[in-house]
């Protein structure tokens, strides 16, 4: 991977930015994500989180525990507010 490779496409975060944040001490997967907004894009991290875990593990030499891998939050695919606001099943 080149240094400037994009890790999180949705939020436009590069590998270099991830490495820099790890060097600054953000070695906890969740803190790293929150600092960089990784995984908060439309795909909810399905593209990037596994890559970030690999970078983190390589850089720190520590395994990221399975339990701390973030869950994706609903909705699984983006839905327009107008659809969500529709009255169909409520009086």
């Amino acid at each position: 991977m080149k240094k400037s490779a994009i890790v999180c496409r949705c939020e436009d975060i590069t590998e270099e930015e991830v490495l820099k944040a790890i060097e600054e001490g953000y070695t906890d997967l969740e803190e790293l994500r929150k600092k960089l907004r990784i995984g908060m894009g439309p795909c909810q991290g399905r593209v990037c989180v596994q890559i970030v875990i690999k970078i983190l593990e390589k850089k720190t030499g520590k395994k990221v525990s399975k339990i701390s891998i973030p869950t994706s939050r609903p909705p699984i695919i983006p839905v327009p507010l107008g659809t969500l606001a529709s009255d169909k099943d409520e009086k």
Partner: protein
Amino acid sequence: MKSKTDVVIIGGGVTGCSLAYMLAKKGIDVVVAEKNYLSSGATGACGAGIRQQWSTKENTELAIKSIKIFESLSTKLGQDIELRQGGYLIAVHDAKEMRQAEKNVNMQRSLGLKVDILDSDEINDVVPVLDVKGMAAVGATFCPTDGHANPFKTTFAYANAARKKGAEIYTHTKVTDIKTINKKISAVKTGKGIIKTNTVVNAAGVWSKKIAEMVDIKLPNVPFRKEILATERLKPMFEAMVISFKDGIYFSQQEEGHIVGGIPIPREKKGYKTMPTFSFIQHMSKTLTRYVPQLKHINMLRHWTGFYDVTPDARPILGEIKELKGFIQCNGFSGHGFMLSPIVSQILSDFITDGKTSKILESLNVNRFKGKKIDHEMYVVG
């Protein structure tokens, strides 16, 4: 892990981290124990709005002082907390609400705050995208120096600055018990070892009640689940946070372009369950698109839950418990703890280092709930 320290703070949210910074700066030996990661509690779920327009004088005063601190915080901590002061626009829906708003604005102005009362036709000058008819507003109040910051960056900035001053912050370290000798704090037991200390700060957010139970102290706090959602990114449309006490809604556009907001959940229950609900999404989408019709075609991206740690008067519980020396409360923020964190940590650090107390600290002690009349804060949303 250290075996001994001056102060143990339980909870690595924005308040725990800011207090750690204030204490470390004064040369106090301080440890933070956080059971997950920093900002994993309410802090990481919050809207991070900062508002000075309150209905009680005490909250208004505290918030004004907090904003002053926030304004220079990025420089002081050496990291950008992304403070944006786009103002808060509070919708007013009828004559009765307007009378209350006028009363509040007079009180706020007497404290030196710049705040305006807007007619319904002035609302769009501040937030052009609002449908004034749809939101059924007869007017609004607007304070241009209100705003919001990034809750993660604020917490991390405090934590990093605290570490530089010598504070030790242990994440993934759960406090399991608190030891006392002769009605004084003596030690804190964690999953990673015991730390001797004479002072414990209970900044565990919605879990503070459980921490207090470890030493047989009952706190009146109740957890209330709150939901919040974010849309996809949009080009900049407005800068103010829009809120309505009647509809309970609040929303703003974040720096990155997402619109983030919440509303009380219909048929909401007390308790610690975190499952998001569809009834929230529906209620929020309906109200939000009534306020801003052009959002109908915008996608909702994410939806999450957090907790308000609510007290009987919606004001925080601060200071030492009279029956247990060294046990200090810093909780019960009832949905506005982010904005109060700078001033609260200043007040508590003065108390912990010099025993310095103040009228405001006394008025927020938990013993206020013992048989006295309660001055309830009315201006709570979400």
